[in-house]
């Protein structure tokens, strides 16, 4: 039987290819994702390994609450360093300080690609320093800087050139004294790195005299492990002591965890494409099974068993899966750099040193691709087994519907399938989800059949939609009319073909509605709550604002008030409950300066008033209504909060605000002075500025901007309108990325349309021959096929839009409205989506239409 299948394959190369691609694209994205993330992980593992290769032991701060975001004060200093040096077996020790800062040209242009911050490190003694000078020398004077070769080459930087480094202290100019290589390679895993002398690195970090790491070298005869134990014993327990190898492994695994998000994000799109591919494979094999009814009848007549027929079809699916998965895997290897490029284009610069293809990537990609294909082909195969032998003798023998199983059989089957799905899910969640969707659809169908026992299945949606769309193009005459009728001839087939497109477009609609809602929500939130004149932030979102900005801006003429808002986090215990259980592991904390804050930020209160904020003491806090109701907290209750710098503070709840999800006040609100003392917070998140009464706004803003440009070039000022505009641009940028990734699913569904059309044309060969014989021109035939495709695509588009929009509205109303989200329908985007569906349909029709028009009239007339 396998030989038969293979021969059939060779005879239908085009179809095999088209169907194979349906699954290949999803597999390619999956393989590409694994390759990309493995490559990045590998690059970083190598980088960290090299960075710590010559450090026997490393002392760092205790990582309370994910410390390392770098916004807390460093606790290591010269005294710690002296204690380390005194430990026997220590050959040398050196303090390091690393922080993130903006790197700019003297004219204010950011030097790092897409504005990501650069690492600013204190240059280490040669035995610890992983960087070596490729040109010039590493910094030895206060005004000197060395920059990594990768950045220098990209930005055309030369020795002797001036660059600006803007960290937590006012920006300073440095002269490039050296171009540095990292252990022989051009850059530090793609990140920009600058080296300064220790005292300057501390200045940039805003922490004179402080270190955030101590590198230790061992004397001969003392192993790193032994030395680590000795150093640990000599230092307080609040510090972490690791060997260099441990520290490298630790940093690598932390990074892998962060990259896990990227992997999951991309894999979601791969699975969406695979679901769409499964639809197409199901449809294609279903159609071919129907077309080969006679062939199966003949095989049955010749004595083939049902099992053999089943195997023949399943083997066909298997081969298809193998072809598709292999093409996909190869495509994935090519796609990985493209994905990397895509993320670069959208502002995420990731290191990529060579391509890493792990065995896992190959196994998972091939396995998932083949499994999805075989699963999708299983149901049509089952159908093929029901072809009666009589089908060989007569034309038009319908495959009888499956006899309905008894209720008991159903329950048993359901349990078995469920166990299988759970088993598969434990191996691969994605495949599990795909299977689950399949099972649910089967279940619904079975339920439908049970209810409409014995009745012919009738479709309503497809003919109605086809009729509506057909009516719109009915002015195009007979070709449009025929296209409409042809598209409802096999409504089930049209539905599945259209549904493949629906998946992609539905998600586009869903996300675009949610995004529009988010933009509107932000817009409303800002205009409702912000009462100041300007918002000052780091122009790279997510980066902190130096604490020195607020006092500096206060000195500008015409500025009425400035209020700084900082964000930190803490682990919250409820002291009202016995044993003081932890109620929030990492709770967000907002730190404010109440006097000026209440003048520029409005919020609604559940308990209390702005006066509650102005009366806030160092041991007081205000919480949000959501946090209060989630943990059953009340005014007057006492909470214990462990801060990021390992302090324990006790706070009393003084008020409850009805802050919405995008509000500035997070779970807990405390005084900014408390945040800088107990939480070790030394950076702000945002500053609000209001102009003095009677001041000329334009002049004041000009003054502020000049100050920022000179001292804090990494920051900028925005009006509320500018701010919301920027946020909405960011949302749009993210949307674009999502659309690009969803486009893959749409492309997959196009192959489905092509496939279905080609197969339908094959079925209608004689009809087309007759039409040509009685004088239908080639262009009319082409037009007819194109309209048919257009109708199918638009059915998919309309269903997608309806499902996506309704879904987004439901999600907003039921899940997000409590947090203040509003619904907003992006009519323009949705219309463009529909237009794209129409264009996609026309595009998909090109090849089938050409084939149909090229049919030889005589041959077609005599075709069976």
């Amino acid at each position, binding site marked *: 039987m396998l030989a038969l299948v293979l021969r059939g394959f060779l005879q239908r190369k085009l179809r095999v290819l088209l169907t194979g691609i349906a699954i290949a694209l999803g597999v390619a994205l999956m393989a590409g994702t694994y390759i990309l993330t493995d490559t990045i992980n590998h690059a970083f593992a190598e980088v960290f390994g090299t960075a710590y290769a010559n450090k026997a032991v490393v002392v760092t701060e205790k990582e309370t609450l994910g410390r390392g975001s770098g916004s807390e004060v460093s606790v290591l200093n010269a005294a710690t360093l002296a204690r380390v040096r005194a430990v026997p077996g220590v050959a040398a020790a050196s303090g390091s300080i690393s922080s993130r800062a903006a790197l700019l040209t003297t004219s204010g242009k950011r030097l790092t690609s897409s504005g990501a911050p650069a690492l600013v490190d204190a240059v280490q003694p040669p035995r610890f320093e992983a960087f070596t000078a490729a040109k010039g020398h590493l910094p030895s004077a206060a005004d000197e800087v060395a920059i990594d070769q990768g950045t220098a080459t990209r930005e055309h930087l030369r020795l002797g050139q001036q660059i600006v480094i803007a960290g937590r202290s006012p920006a300073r100019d440095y002269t490039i004294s050296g171009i540095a290589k990292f252990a022989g390679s051009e850059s530090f895993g793609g990140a920009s790195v600058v080296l300064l002398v220790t005292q300057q690195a501390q200045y940039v970090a805003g922490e004179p005299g402080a270190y955030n790491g101590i590198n230790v070298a061992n004397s001969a005869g003392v192993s790193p492990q032994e030395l680590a134990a000795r150093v640990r014993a000599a230092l307080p327990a609040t510090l972490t002591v690791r060997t260099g190898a441990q520290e490298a492994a630790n940093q690598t695994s932390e990074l892998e965890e962060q990259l896990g998000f990227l992997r999951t994000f991309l894999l979601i799109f791969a699975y969406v494409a695979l679901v769409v591919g499964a639809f197409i494979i199901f449809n294609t094999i279903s159609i071919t099974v129907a077309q080969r009814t006679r062939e199966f009848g003949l095989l049955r007549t010749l004595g083939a068993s049902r099992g053999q027929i089943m195997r023949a079809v399943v083997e066909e699916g298997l081969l298809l899966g193998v072809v598709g998965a292999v093409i996909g895997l190869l495509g994935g290897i090519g796609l990985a750099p493209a994905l990397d490029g895509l993320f670069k284009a959208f502002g995420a610069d990731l290191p990529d040193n060579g391509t890493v293809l792990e065995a896992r990537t190959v196994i998972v990609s091939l396995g998932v691709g083949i499994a999805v294909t075989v699963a999708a082909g299983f149901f049509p195969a089952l159908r093929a087994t029901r072809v009666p032998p009589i089908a060989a003798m007569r034309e038009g023998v319908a495959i009888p519907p499956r006899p309905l199983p008894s209720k008991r059989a159903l329950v048993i089957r359901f349990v078995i399938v469920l166990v299988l799905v759970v088993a598969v899910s434990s191996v691969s969640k994605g495949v599990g989800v795909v299977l689950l969707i399949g099972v649910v659809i089967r279940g619904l169908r079975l339920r439908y059949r049970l209810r409409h026992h014995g009745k012919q299945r009738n479709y309503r949606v497809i003919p109605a939609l086809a009729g509506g769309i057909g009516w719109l193009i009915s002015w195009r005459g007979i070709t449009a*009319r*025929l296209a409409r009728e042809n598209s409802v001839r096999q409504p089930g087939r049209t539905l599945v073909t259209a549904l493949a497109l629906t998946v992609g477009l539905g998600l586009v609609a869903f996300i675009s509605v949610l995004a529009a809602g988010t933009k509107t929500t932000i817009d409303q939130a800002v205009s409702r709550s912000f009462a100041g004149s300007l918002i000052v932030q780091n122009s790279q979102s997510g980066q902190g604002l130096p604490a020195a900005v607020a006092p500096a801006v206060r000195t500008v003429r015409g500025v009425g008030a400035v209020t700084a808002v900082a964000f930190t986090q803490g682990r919250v215990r409820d002291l009202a409950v016995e044993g003081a259980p932890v109620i929030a592991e990492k709770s967000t904390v907002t730190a404010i300066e109440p006097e000026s804050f209440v003048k520029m930020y409005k919020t609604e209160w559940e308990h209390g008033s702005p006066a509650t904020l102005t009366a806030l003491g160092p041991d007081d806090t205000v919480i949000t209504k959501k946090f209060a109701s989630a943990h059953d907290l009340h005014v007057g209750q006492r909470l214990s909060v462990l801060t990021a710098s390992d302090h324990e503070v006790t706070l009393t709840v003084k008020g409850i605000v009805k802050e919405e999800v995008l509000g500035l006040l997070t779970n807990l609100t405390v005084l900014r002075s408390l945040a800088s003392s107990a939480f070790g917070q030394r950076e702000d998140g945002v500053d609000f500025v209001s102009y003095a009464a009677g001041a000329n706004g334009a002049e004041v803003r000009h003054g502020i901007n000049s100050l920022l440009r000179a001292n804090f070039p990494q920051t900028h000022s925005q009006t509320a309108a500018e701010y919301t505009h920027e946020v909405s641009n960011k949302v749009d940028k993210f949307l674009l990325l999502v659309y690009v990734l969803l486009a893959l699913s749409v492309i997959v569904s196009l192959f489905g349309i092509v496939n279905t059309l080609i197969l339908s044309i094959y079925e209608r060969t*004689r009809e087309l021959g*007759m*039409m040509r*014989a009685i*004088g239908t021109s*080639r262009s009319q035939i082409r037009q007819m096929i194109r309209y048919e495709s257009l109708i199918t695509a638009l059915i998919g588009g309309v269903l997608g839009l309806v499902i996506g929009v309704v879904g987004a509205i439901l999600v907003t109303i039921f899940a997000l409205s409590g947090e203040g989200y509003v619904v907003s329908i992006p009519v323009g985007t949705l219309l463009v989506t529909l237009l794209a569906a129409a264009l996609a349909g026309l595009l998909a029709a090109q090849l089938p239409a050409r084939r149909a028009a090229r049919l030889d009239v005589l041959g077609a*007339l005599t075709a069976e």
Partner: protein
Amino acid sequence: MHLLAGLDRPTSGTVTLGGVELTGLDDRRLTELRRDRVGFIFQTFNLLPVLSAEENIVLPLSIAGRDVDREWFDRLVDTVGIRDRLSHRPAELSGGQQQRVAVARALISRPSVVFADEPSGNLDSKSSGDVLALLRQAVDDFGQTVVMVTHDAHAASFADRLLVLADGKIVHDGPAASTEEALDLMKAVG
């Protein structure tokens, strides 16, 4: 017949239809010629299953984008006798009815010539007689030229002129004949 109808191209010789030389025409012109000057009746009816009987009849005009001459349409429908079936789809019609729809379709554009390829081949004898009578009527009442290909001597007896082909050569060309005479002629070529 395929050559005469402009469905195939001759390797040698010429075909002239209604004064138009077919041999040199490109596909577009041939298509237009078939649309406007030729009617087709097939053995397997070849109606479009998705269209009603009425839509099938006017299909050649729809393709050409022309208006239907209602008077002519009514006359044809009454002649072939399917007025009460106009809104039905082919699947709801008997074979004889389908072929009568096909006859009306072939005549609707008043072609120069109608080619009928075994028009009675797939019909029972009653329907077969009806369809052949119809074709005869088209010739007598509408002055329509009909070229019919058949293996059936009875069908052949309806024609005014009888050509017998054997292995691609005309072996007989003569006036109308009875069923028996036609049968003898066909037997002669074996």
